[in-house]
Structures are given as C-alpha cells and as structure tokens.
C-alpha cells in the first residue's frame, strides 16, 4: 500500500476544515478525520497529532462544544458540535480564504 505524499495544509486551514465539517452534523474526532479525507479524495489526511490539539484549542475558544455520546455500535465517543461563535468564525475564515485563493491565482496567472 503506497501512501500518497503528505501535503502540508496552509496555516489555519485545518480549523476551517473542521468547522466546515461540523456544520453538516455533530461528529467525533475520527469521523471528522474520515470526512475530510473522503471529501478531499485522500489528498488531505488529518493527522491525529494535529487533529486533537486543534479540537481542544477550538473548544477553549468557544467555537465548538464537546459532549460524550454513543456511536451506532454502542461505543462511547466524544462528539463535537459547532457553536454560533464557531459559525461566525467559519464565515470570516471562508471569506479571507477566498481572498487568498483569488490572490494566489492572480499571481500564478491564467492557466
């Protein structure tokens, strides 16, 4: 099994990806990692070493809430929910991210 080369995320994008993922539904850490990996077609792999510290940081900032719940298989897991503050944060990050992408493509010129 060949692992694709790891891509470095732009700083701050992980938070945005997590928040975006949580807008659709409440999820546990593993689910978030899977979701991002699946939607990015395996290009982005969220490392647990960055995922859990990021989740803790965002919880302390009040962007997400954490609650223990049961998975469909009756296992205890910690589920994360986005808060109104988190949604506001996501909006800001999305718009500044859009600006950044537009700026980069301007610099790179027409394909």
């Amino acid at each position, binding site marked *: 099994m060949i692992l694709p080369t790891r891509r470095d995320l732009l700083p701050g994008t992980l938070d945005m990806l997590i928040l975006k993922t949580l807008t659709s539904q409440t999820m546990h*850490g593993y689910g978030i*990692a899977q979701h991002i990996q699946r939607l990015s077609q395996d290009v982005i792999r969220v*490392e647990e*070493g960055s995922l*859990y*510290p990021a989740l803790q940081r965002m919880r302390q900032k*009040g962007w997400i809430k954490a609650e223990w719940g049961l998975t469909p298989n009756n*296992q205890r*897991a*910690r589920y994360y929910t986005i808060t109104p503050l988190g949604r506001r944060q996501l909006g800001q990050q999305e718009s500044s991210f859009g600006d950044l992408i537009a700026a980069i493509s301007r610099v790179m010129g027409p394909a």
Partner: protein
Amino acid sequence: MREWLARLRDWLRRDQLDRELAEELRFHQEQLKREAGAAGLDPDEAAWMARRKLGNVTRHREEARDRWSWPWLDDLQQDVRYALRGLGRSPGFTATVILTLGLGIGANAAMFGVIDRLMLRPYAYLREPARVHRVYLQSTHRDRTRIASGGIEYTTYLDLRKGSSSFSRFAAFTSGPMAVGSGDAVREFAVASVSGSFFDFFDARPVLGRFFGAAEDITPQGAPVAVLSYAFWKTEFGGRDVVGEILQVRNIPCTIIGVAPEGFDGVMAERPPAIYIPITTNAGYANAQSDLTGYFTRYNWGWISIMAQRNPGISVDEASADLSDAYLGSWNASLALDPEGTPPEIARPRAIAGPLKIAAGPDPSLEARTLKWVTGVAVIVLLIAAANVANLMFARVLHRRRETAVRLALGVSRQRLLRQYLTESFLFAGLGCVAGVAIAQWGGALLRHLFLQQGTSLDVFTDRRTIMVAAGFALAAGLMTGIGPAIFELSIGKALETLQVFFGNSFFFVAQFNDTLRN
C-alpha cells in the same frame, strides 16, 4: 480573555480531561483497527496498521494536553501547598507574623478609608466634578484672616450668584440634624437643605417620583416638599410607594415627592443626609414666627455653604477673581445696611473657587491636618511591621539553611526556590491582609469617632476602594518581607554555609551571627 478563562477552567479539571483524551485516542485507534479489519487484514496486522497510522499516542496526548497544562500554575499550586504546610508546622511563628502584618495593614486600611472619604473620593453622580467648586470666602478681622467654607449668609449667596458671570450653576446647601416624624415616633436624622438647582449638579434620576426644582425653592418661604435618600426610604418605609405622604420635618409638614437613587449623598458624603428639603423651606419655616424677609435681605444670619459650576474655558483663577468682585459688591451692600462693619480696605474680602472637600481646600481643618500626621504614623507602623517580619523571616531562613543546602544539592533550581520563598511571604501578607481588613473594620470605630461625624457609614468589608488599597499594602509588605530573606537564603546563606564548612563555628563572625539570630 474568554479563552484564558476556558484554559483556567480546564486546568482545574485537568485530570478529567487527561482521562477523556486518552479514551478519545483509544476510540480513534479502535476505529482504525476496525477499518483495517474490514479491508481484509488479519487482526494482528490490523492492530499494527492502526498503531502505525495513529503514530505516537503519547506524543499526541502531550500535544493536546498542552492546551490545559500550565506548568507554572502547577508549580504555584505546589508552592502554596508547601507554604501552607510550613505555616501549620510553626503556628506560633505564623500567628506572630500574620498579626504583625495585620496590624500594619489594618491601620493603613482604616486610615485610608477615612482620608478617602474626607479628601479623595469623588462624589457619586456628580457631573463635571473638575468644574464644580465650593466657594470659600476669605476676610480679615482684627488682623486675623479667616477662610469660611460654610456659615455664609443666604443674602451673600444671592449677591455672588447675581454679581458673577463665570459660573453656569450655583447652589446653596446646608445639612444638620432635625427632628423627623410626629408624636412618639420622632427621631433625629440628618436633613439637607438645598437649592432647587442642587440636583442639576448631578447626573442622578430619582428612583421614585421627582426632585424639587426652582419653583419650590422660592423666597420668602419655599414649598413644604421632601426628597428621601434611598437608605432612609428603605429602612423607614420599607421601599414602598411613599410619594404624596406627609412627613413631619421639624416644624414643616413635608409632602414626600421623590426618592434619590442608591448611593446619592449629594456633596455631604461625610454625613449622608436622610432627607432633602428646599433651602428656602428650611429658612422660611424657621423664621415663620418672626421676620420672614431678613434671611435673604440682610447679612446677620450665616448658615449655608455654596457650590458652583465653573463655565468651560474659564480658569479657576479667573473664576475666583470674578467671584471676588461679586463678594466685594456684597460686602459693600452689607456695609450700607450696617455702617459699623469692617470696611473692605481692612477686611480685604476675597472669594475662592476651591475644591468641594473642605479637607482638600485652602483652609483644611485641624482634623485634616491631624489626619495627615496619623497617616504618616500608620505608614511608619507598616514599615516597622514589615521590618519585624522580615527579621523573623531571616531567622527562619537561617533555621532552614540545611534544608536549602540539601535541596540545592539535589538539583532544585535557585529560581524555583526563590519563587517558593516568595510564595511563602506573599501567603503571609495575604493572610495579614485578611487580618488587617478585619482589624480595620472593628478597630476603625475609634477613627470614625475622631474624624468623621456620627452616622457616617465606614464599612470596610463592602468598600472596594479600601479593600484594594489594603491589598496593595499587603503586596508591598509581601515583597518587602520576602525578597530580602529569599535572596539572602540563596546567596549569602550559601556563602555562610561555605564559610562554616571551611572555618567551623570558631570563625567568630559566623558564630556570633548565628547566636544573634538564634536568640
């Protein structure tokens, strides 16, 4: 800010968070294992894959844990615990230190409470406090210059108001005890008599009804109306709707028209009034049986104080000069009625727009001057207390030098030790502060009696300004008593130890030094 609070909350329940994180990571690993198993790997291989994918679990946990671990807070907690244990081990020493510091801090807190009320604390609700003055009148009689902050004739007040142009507002006021109530229920309360313009000086809205104004404050006799203070309304009327009720104030059957907001003391915080009535109501009823016009046409009844709000753009000196001109005119008017009075060339009448608080004014009373002296003494008492405690700490340091040497030898960093000893002295200071506030609360009665008029509230426990100042004194005391011994312990203490090793106790300086401190 919010984030820091969250981090602090997390720190307090860090053990629980550690456990939860471990469980979360275990769950993650199981999911990876299941996924690998579903892909057709045998269990052993699946477990290995999962472990490899998840990587170093301990490292992940450490990284996430950084979000709630605060090493210095852990250290602090440990230091405090250690210091508390030390305190408990030598109760006599602890009690002596706390009581000594408590007396020093308490004396200062109590003095500050009095000084603050007499000289510093701004009046609640006062608008433009920088431009509101008390009017002081200076004159010379028989070679003695007198500065009056009160006891001024109402006629003079009218003259100053009419004769000056530097002020947007004037108010006359006076306060004193009066019999309030009727029949058996008569009791004495502080009653303030104030001009109708008085309430305009403040940014206060009545909690009930309304304040009185110029229409009710008219010569010769003002309207019989009263505004209650919030505290009086609460204690005497239980806070019910009293507007329209009649309250007998001396010989005035007053209709209650309103209640002042909580904490409103006018400019009489030294002795908060219970009731406010128009000043012309007081004068009009006081003179009802005799001459009703004398108090505002002649100059033979001095009984009021004056406050005035200076116009913006006019300096204090200009305002005082303007007032002085008006006062000279008033002086001459009084001479016209009473040719026997002192001529202005000799009396040299002068008016001063000074601070509202008399103790901070051009002629501070004897009490204010005494107060400064007593405060100086209180500060010295605190310094002596701190020096004594520092001495005790030095002795303790010597007593403990073996322990210190061992800990240093075991590799404790000097900073850590220094911090620990400072924690100890700050803990002492903190406990001293608590003792001091209690001493100030219960021992302050004497000061109150000496410097403030009766009926003044001086509750240290609920006074944030005094508590803050006491905490400040405690901080200073903690530093004073802690830093010296701590540094001594780590440097000179070490040197002494070395000297002793080399020369033994026969080295007379060391021997003597030790003996001195042991005794």
